[in-house]
């Protein structure tokens, strides 16, 4: 027995309390409708209607079971229209360097909440530039400055950073700083080393491939961590202060996918950065 079909018979007869009218509504003849109701009652083992020559009435069981039958049909209709309206949602391939996840990883959460369906692609900035140019990444947040020719670039955002280390206050200045390998973003690396030297740090760094490795060295007291803080009031702090700078990049038109609204996305990411 097709349960949904028979539930529809039940609800129609219950609403009209008249087999002829219910059959009209359902677009069928009266005899098969009557047979259908009998089949349903047999199947459920409950009488749903009292009927005599003059009229049709819901039994107490029929009245009790009617709301659930309506819900069942409503859910079925919703499910069907949901299925019909379903369209593939493009996955947003969002590139981000692992040294930026600590401060800007929240971008992924915000984009997911917006319904952008982000797929994180965690790679070094220079790799992301190439991947974006080749259309393997839709949008990427990378360290600035990097060589970015051929890409659409957003504004530069700066966040203040400070050195933190295990042990006594001020010990960080004497330790090498745990950073990603220079090859991940040579110009940004050199700029950071220059800024460290400007502050009175020796400029010594330990180049470690992953964020967890860097955390481990900091935990062991062998390196200072560069902690990127809140705030982006770029003109408030003196230039000599430690800053980590980032920008959003997108591929050229020829590699953009139609499922990703690139300009809207760039605007949204910049809003989130702000």
């Amino acid at each position, binding site marked *: 027995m097709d349960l949904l079909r028979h539930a529809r018979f039940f609800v129609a007869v219950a609403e009209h309390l008249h087999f002829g009218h219910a059959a009209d509504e359902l677009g069928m003849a009266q005899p098969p409708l009557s047979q259908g109701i009998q089949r349903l009652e047999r199947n459920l083992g409950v009488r749903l209607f009292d009927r005599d020559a003059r009229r049709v009435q819901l039994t107490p069981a029929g009245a009790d079971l009617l709301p659930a039958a309506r819900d069942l049909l409503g859910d079925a209709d919703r499910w069907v229209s949901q299925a019909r309206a379903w369209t593939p949602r493009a996955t947003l391939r969002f590139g981000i360097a692992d040294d930026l996840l600590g401060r800007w990883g929240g971008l992924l959460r915000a984009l997911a909440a917006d319904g952008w369906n982000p797929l994180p692609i965690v790679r070094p900035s*220079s790799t992301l530039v190439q991947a974006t140019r080749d259309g393997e990444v839709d949008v990427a947040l990378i360290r*600035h*400055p*990097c*060589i*970015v*020719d051929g890409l659409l*670039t957003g*504004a*530069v955002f*700066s966040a203040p950073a400070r050195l933190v280390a295990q042990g006594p206050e001020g010990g960080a200045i004497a330790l090498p700083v745990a950073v990603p390998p220079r090859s991940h973003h*040579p*110009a940004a690396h*050199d*700029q950071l080393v*220059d800024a460290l030297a400007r502050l009175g740090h020796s400029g010594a760094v330990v180049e470690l491939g992953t964020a967890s490795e860097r955390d481990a060295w900091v935990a062991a007291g062998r390196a200072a961590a560069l902690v990127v803080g809140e705030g982006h009031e*770029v*003109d408030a702090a003196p*230039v000599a202060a430690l*800053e980590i*700078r980032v*920008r959003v990049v997108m591929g050229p038109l020829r590699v953009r996918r139609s499922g990703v609204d690139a300009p809207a996305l760039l605007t949204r990411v910049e809003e989130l950065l702000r």
Partner: protein
Amino acid sequence: MTRWHDAAETIRALAADAGVHARVHARAVETTTREAEAPGASTPVAGRRDVEALEPEVAVEADTPTAIASLYKPALAGAWADLVAAGEFDPVSRLRLPSRGRAPGETGVAALADDVEVSQRDAVRLMLAVSDNACAEALLDLVGLTRVAAWLAGHGLSATAVRRGSAQSLRRIIEETGGRSLSEAMSRLADPRHDRGTSEYDSAMTSSGTARELTAILRILWLGEQYDWVRESMRRQAWRHRIGSGFPHDDVGVAGKTGTLGRLRHEAAVVHFPHELPVAVAVMTVSVRPEMHQPRVDAAIGAIARSAVNALRTPAALAMWPPPHEPGSPREPPC
């Protein structure tokens, strides 16, 4: 062939490592007997070779139009020298450089406080040896953009355009950045927290050229007798932090001219190893970092020039192949 190709690969890697876009060209300079005498050279080279026929070169983005900054000055000097040779200018006649209205700059007469008077040829020397903007401006007024353009066109250099001198370029930067002074304008361009630009970085808007044509200009200047003074002035260039840093050898001559403006760091030079053909090399870089002082990029320019020149080094005797062999007069083996 692979040697030049390998050099180009090395150069691309050096540029990426330094965070710059690089436009590079290098070629040997055909030379006359007298010019082949490098500092310390004892064996004069006789004869010439047909360079055009199968010219080895190292080229990376060598035909990409690029803003040349002060690298318009060698062409200006060349045009001036031709006018001297034609009897139009007297090289020892005096140029007045009053302090008022003089072009701004960090070096030479441009850095002085009071009125100055120099001969034309000394102005050329200061313009090339220390990139003096005041002397360059006076010489550009004297020669004129039209005659510089004619000099370039006469040598078939169609990718080089001298649109204005340094003084005007600097004034435009002040206007575009909204700075009140040159130093404020340059600080704004150099602020690492922004990605600021200026039309003076744009090859379509300002004086521009290509690495290939820069080495062509050097070759022209190195071959003509009328350019003796120009060459000698370039040998006296005060800086050795760029191309010169790639050749830390006292017996190797580096005669060059730098060009510097914001993100642009260039040099075109003739590198001369004793007993070898001089090699002209042009390295133009556009840095992704905006800061004014970038010793790593200067050093990378030296390393790039070294890669390019090494791939082209040829003992002068070999360069005359086939040797002008005369029966009965055995030649010494090339050293």
